[in-house]
């Protein structure tokens, strides 16, 4: 399957919905299969690779931060980038620039760049398939 390119459009903010987890699972599955993946993060989804996400303790259950090992979506994005390097796939992740500015989320993990919805249109035209995962 290598050589194929799939495009995903994500809209959900992190930490809110199982759709984010499923979307990242799909993207990871594709890169592990050696496929190139385009990701357009729109609206709240620009927070997924936000590099200032911070793990926390769980005082209710008595766990310190290190014990709780709270999962952070930015780390999942980094892992996807690493899996792509291992499989020879390319991941091009674009955050909607206006959405980033609105939310003050300019800092993102390595491999993420700014763009516009026009990039999604271009990807939809040129990739082998596109999946939009809407919020509702």
């Amino acid at each position, binding site marked *: *399957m290598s050589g194929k390119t*799939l495009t995903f459009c994500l809209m959900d903010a992190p930490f809110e919905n*199982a759709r984010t987890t*499923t979307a990242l699972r799909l993207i990871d*599955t594709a890169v592990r*299969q050696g*496929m190139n993946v385009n990701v357009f993060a729109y609206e709240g989804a620009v927070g997924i690779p936000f590099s200032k996400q911070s793990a926390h303790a769980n005082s209710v259950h008595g766990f310190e931060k290190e014990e709780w090992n709270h999962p952070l979506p930015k780390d999942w994005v980094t892992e996807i980038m690493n899996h792509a390097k291992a499989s020879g796939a390319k991941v091009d992740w674009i955050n909607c620039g206006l959405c980033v500015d609105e939310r003050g989320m300019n800092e993102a993990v390595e491999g993420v760049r700014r763009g516009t919805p026009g990039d999604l249109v271009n990807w939809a035209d040129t990739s082998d*398939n596109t999946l939009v995962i*809407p919020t509702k």
Partner: protein
Amino acid sequence: MANYLLIESRDPFEVNDVAYFYDLASGLKARGNEVTLFLVQNGVLPARKNPSDDTLAKLATAGVQVLADNLSLQERGIQGSSLVNGVAAAELDVVIEKMADGAKTLWH
């Protein structure tokens, strides 16, 4: 004839318009298309045998390939042996492979 991949992530007991998505799968199949309905997240809940609802079984009988995400099933404690007849557990790789093959893909 086209290939369709419909991804259902919602529980029909929580969201009424899931039934429309099932109808879409049925209608596309009735018009001669190849149709896969892939259940994920709470969308797998109706895949558990339920004597009061045979919707998914009817879709499978009509020729729709009905698959349920293995991890979503495990998370909800649904064993493979308790799935509706005609529904099979599957990995997300199926979604990626069908997308790469050009299936028209919709998420609900």
